């Protein structure tokens, strides 16, 4: 194994919209056209008026990668994957609320 050398300093992809459509597509191993479709059905919400000036943030990256996995692994249409995404997000929100009230599943099972 190689020994760690320098300390790498990266860019934080957070709430500030920093990713361009090309960067987002590449990070998902997809084409820009696919990103445009995700924006059209409202899964991604970039800032900026035109495709070329769109900027995406961390939540978009997470969503897009998830959509890519759901579509690939389940052979799902864009709409079906988007519906799954919606449901998964709802489950996660419910889980977070359970956790907040101390009723998380790990503890009760």
């Amino acid at each position: 194994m190689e020994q760690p050398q320098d300390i790498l300093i990266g860019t934080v992809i957070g709430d500030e919209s920093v990713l361009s459509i090309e960067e987002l597509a590449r990070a998902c191993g997809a084409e820009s056209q696919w990103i445009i479709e995700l924006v059209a059905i409202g899964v991604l919400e970039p800032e900026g008026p035109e495709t070329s000036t769109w900027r995406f943030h961390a939540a978009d990256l997470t969503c897009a990668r998830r959509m890519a996995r759901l579509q690939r692994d389940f052979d799902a249409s864009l709409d079906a994957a988007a519906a799954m995404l919606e449901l998964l997000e709802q489950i996660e929100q419910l889980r977070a609320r359970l956790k907040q009230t101390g009723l998380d599943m790990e503890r009760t099972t």
Partner: protein
Amino acid sequence: MEFKDYYKTLGIERTATADEIKSAYRKLARKHHPDVNKEPGAEARFKELGEAYEVLKDTEKRAAYDDLGNRWREGQEFTPPPEWGAGFEFTQGGASATEAADFSDFFSSLFGNFSRHAESTHTRGEDHHAKIFIPLEDAFRGGTQTLTLRAPQVNAQGRPELRERSLNVQIPNGVREGQHIRLAGQGAPGITGTSPGDLYLEIHFHPHKLYQVQGRDLSLLLPIAPWEAALGATAKAPTPSGVVEVKIPPGSRSGRKLRLKGRGIPGEPAGDLYLILEVVLPPADSERAQEIYHTMAQELAFNPRQTLGV
């Protein structure tokens, strides 16, 4: 390296038809998909399924694998026979190099050499993704994390093999769960002269023994004594940036939330820290303590079940 029984992974007979393989895979994949199933271990199981399906769905690979399967059993020590691959020419298809990188050494030793083709279609190295688990404290003070990643690299024989490498990454303060750190040029190497891809690290916090995290806000269960709740008090409370004193308003009940503005994860704006009050009873474990409880019972006309009408 151990021999893997891909039929066993998918729970099917060696005689299964292509349709049976597909349906077994789809059923299991649905159940163990890491986006759907949050159980620990689901992701590993899903990868095993993907690997098994990658081989068995492809008639060429399945035939080659079956040929080996007559000689090895699950878990047996395995080295590819010297003549391996001589009689087979795998057509490229299915998993990309990045996906195949997640597959086992067993898989790479058998089918590793076919994934090279996938990369040549890209003009630059692929972006890689990894999750990084950091202590919550790093979001407050910043820190350095060393992470070990496994990435495929083409060896002298022209087969990709998994190689471990370590990276030291600076964690800037103010990072939150779900954000990513992008390390330029740390992804897959580009093919002859093109630039390498980037590495994206998705931030996750280790579970903290005191604080729950919601976005930039934190919450903490703060135990208080009945008299502090009833009469009000000043109580000490831990926060990630040090101990603070908080005012408990008189008449507080369990579940009441006190917000400490700006005591959550730093940033513009900083998050808040919510203290969730929890009234705890002193044990009646001495004569004196019992006496006090008796006095309360006699002297306070208190019916906690009044609202129930009894």
